[in-house]
């Protein structure tokens, strides 16, 4: 049942000018999505370059200089222009819909937040034609990143680009917070908000506290490199290389939560819908999210255990503790599926994929909390395995779950389920083939960020396996892209509520009209659309908490 009389489809066929100037949060959300998808492909090509070079010992395809640019730009693109903005894009599209608001609080600032992203991505990538992109690693440790050791414009372009991304994130976070606090529909109390909105709220607080720190550090770094500053430059008196690591990780560890919390939010919408049950332990889940956010600022120095410059027991304890709220969430998701009636749509497959892979990313993270274990595996491929089980097994699986789940809402048409399942199986197998062997390489001592490795160290076959996995992931993207292409040209019409959803976005048309709603269903729980659908059912089935 559509609650609007408008037929909005026509408004999505408008011209280029409309897309370039729009302040509609939904169109901006779609722009975020496609911008992130394009950069996902670019970052993926960088990853394939790395995997291709490492398939065999010896340098076959590129020089060290190119290789170092590839892994630096792979990580930078995937973190700053794919995972963070992809999830911010979902937030843009969904938060106003889910809280029953007509738009974001500051629509024009919202548009600015988006347009800074393609601009900054182009600036960062401009390094390639100008003689070499940034190549000091995405962590850009000083003094390696200083002008003496990292020559050429690539690093400066990278700094400027990241400063713009930081600005975009900060503006976006303020926008989300004001929207969530000031624009909820009548009846939408904080504890009736969908969990996804909660994760965006906590993420925005993290962004607001962390991103200004990184952005200021980047400006200091720029001064070091170009204006003779001595913030982090050990060649000058007063320069402190460890200071860079502290301020960098003060943002960049919470950034991991910025990249995983909204994905957890997506999964927390998908699993209840397809299990036909409410999320088990809604309040516990909200508190766990806030707990991760709070603890997230006290664990940054676990990236620095081997520097000899941090108080080890404190950061070890906090890092162990942050596993607890994450574990609580895992049990909540599993309990939501228990005694449910699970429908295996592609979105649900991705959500279950998230659970089973992110679990590994959580467990191998606990290894790193133990300082003596970290002494052994720090800066090896074990770390690469860990972060990819979190960011690929977690964030990317969550993002795809969200794409398949909300695509019908965004475009009024369902992505093809058959192609979607092929996509899922390919990416699930490829992901494990790529990243699981990296654990083994890591514990046997293979350092990360090396363009070449000894042929006699026992890493040849594991590397080849990882490369095969990388190309499996790449191949599995083809059915996805084809799926997007045919769906945009005319897929199966979705209707307003194709999945029997719980939250307000399913109470309007697909795609929703400008300003979203003509009227809203009554909001008496965190599942207003479920309540309306089952209003006449036996009361025992729909009783609240």
């Amino acid at each position, binding site marked *: 049942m559509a609650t609007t009389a408008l037929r909005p489809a026509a408004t999505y066929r408008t011209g280029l000018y409309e897309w370039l100037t729009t302040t509609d949060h939904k169109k901006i959300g779609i722009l975020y999505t496609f911008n992130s998808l394009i950069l996902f492909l670019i970052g993926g090509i960088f990853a394939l370059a790395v995997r291709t070079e490492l398939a065999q010992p010896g340098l076959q395809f590129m020089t060290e200089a190119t290789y170092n640019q590839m892994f630096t730009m792979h990580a930078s693109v995937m973190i700053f222009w794919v995972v963070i903005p992809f999830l911010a894009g979902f937030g843009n599209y969904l938060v106003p819909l889910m809280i029953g608001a007509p738009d974001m609080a500051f629509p024009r600032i919202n548009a600015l937040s988006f347009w800074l992203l393609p601009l900054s991505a182009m600036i960062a990538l401009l390094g390639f034609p100008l003689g070499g992109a940034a190549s000091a690693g995405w962590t850009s440790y000083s003094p390696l990143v200083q002008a003496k050791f990292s020559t050429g414009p690539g690093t400066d372009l990278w700094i400027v680009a990241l400063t713009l991304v930081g600005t975009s994130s900060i503006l976006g976070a303020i926008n989300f917070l004001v929207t969530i606090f000031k624009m909820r529909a009548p009846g939408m109390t904080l504890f009736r908000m969908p969990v996804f909105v909660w994760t965006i709220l906590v993420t925005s607080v993290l962004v607001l506290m962390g991103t200004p720190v990184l952005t200021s550090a980047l400006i200091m770094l720029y001064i070091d490199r170009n204006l003779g500053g001595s913030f982090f430059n050990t060649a000058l008196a007063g320069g402190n*290389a460890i200071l860079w690591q502290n301020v960098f990780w003060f943002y960049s560890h919470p950034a991991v939560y910025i990249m995983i919390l909204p994905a957890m939010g997506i999964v927390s919408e998908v699993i209840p819908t397809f299990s036909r049950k409410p999320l088990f332990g809604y309040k516990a889940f909200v508190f766990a999210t806030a707990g991760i956010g709070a603890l997230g600022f006290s664990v940054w120095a676990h990236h620095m255990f081997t520097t000899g410059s941090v108080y080890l027991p404190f950061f070890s304890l906090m890092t162990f503790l942050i596993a607890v709220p994450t574990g609580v969430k895992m049990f909540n998701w599993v309990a939501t599926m228990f005694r449910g009636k699970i429908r*295996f749509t592609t979105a649900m497959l991705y959500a279950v994929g998230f659970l089973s892979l992110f679990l590994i990313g959580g467990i191998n993270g606990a290894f790193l909390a133990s300082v003596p274990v970290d002494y052994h595996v720090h800066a090896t491929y074990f770390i690469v395995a860990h972060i990819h089980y979190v960011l690929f097994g977690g964030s990317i699986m969550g993002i795809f779950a969200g794409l398949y789940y909300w695509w019908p809402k965004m475009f009024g048409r369902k992505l093809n389920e058959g192609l979607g399942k092929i996509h899922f199986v390919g990416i699930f197998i490829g992901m494990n083939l790529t990243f699981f062997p990296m654990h083994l390489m890591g514990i046997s001592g293979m350092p990360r960020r090396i363009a070449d490795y000894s042929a006699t160290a026992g890493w040849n076959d594991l590397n080849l396996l990882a490369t095969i996995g990388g190309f499996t992931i790449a191949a599995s993207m083809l059915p996805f892209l084809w799926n997007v292409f045919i769906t945009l040209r005319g897929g199966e019409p979705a209707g307003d509520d194709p999945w029997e959803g719980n939250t307000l976005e399913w109470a309007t048309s697909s795609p929703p009209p400008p300003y979203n709603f003509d009227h809203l269903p009554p909001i008496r729980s965190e599942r207003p659309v479920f309540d309306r659908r089952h209003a006449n059912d036996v009361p025992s089935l729909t009783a609240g908490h």
Partner: protein
Amino acid sequence: MGPIAKRWARRAGVVAALGALAVLLSACSDFNLRTAVPPDAASVQGQASRNIYDIVFVIGAAVFFLVEGLILFAVLRYRRRAGDDELPPQIHGNNRLEIIWTAIPIAIVLALFVLSWQTLNTVDARTPTPPVRIGVVAFQWQWQFVYAPDGVRWEDCGAPANKGRCVTVFGTPPAGGDRSKWTPPTMHVPVDETVELQMHSTDVIHSFYVPAFLYQRDITPRKDQVIQFTADRIGIYRGQCTQFCGLYHQFMEFQVQVESKADYVAWLQQELTPPRSPSAAPSASGPAGSPAVSAAP
């Protein structure tokens, strides 16, 4: 085929695919189960780290199988059958259950933390009088190991007055400038004695890592590091810089040769006696591009 037969056929297909994958994996030639665990520790501290690793691994594996098992069980058991439109019971939570699965993980991680902390105190223990002190200089993209056995500060070994009183180990310079042909320098250490490394970087951050010691430590400019270890197994162990340090990072390899006390003393004496072996110390100033020894601040 009926729906049940179809389901079983699909399951058989999955099992066959997994079997094929296992065969493919086992056909790999240089992979073996030795790679699946950390190297056998060759130092006292490394053994301590290995012990805590094994504990974390066992608990991690138990959690993995428990939770992955619950996920699989839920996914297989609670599938929605075709035509089943009835709503399942709407369970919103269970406080007792949620308290249990919060408390148990807290207990586990606190236990792991305490055990890790105790191990850390073993690994990071320092003796004030280590029998062997070696200076380690890291630079783009090689290592220098400096032995000053008769009371000279290793940082002063470059001074003319100390000529012949120190041993400096370099990697052998590359043939024809090919860095991949660079023979990594070898650090000689006696077995069962505490060795102290005084580590200094002349340019960017490097990291001293020996997998067989299960240990690494960053060497940051202006932040010299002191570490100690006690190797307890004779052998030659691979080491490598793990902190990305620029263009030729992957060539920053070295070896640690753990030998008997007698062999170690003999080696040191041989190196101290002029003329020194050209392979160990090619010239007084070292190979082109390597810094002078007296590089400490």
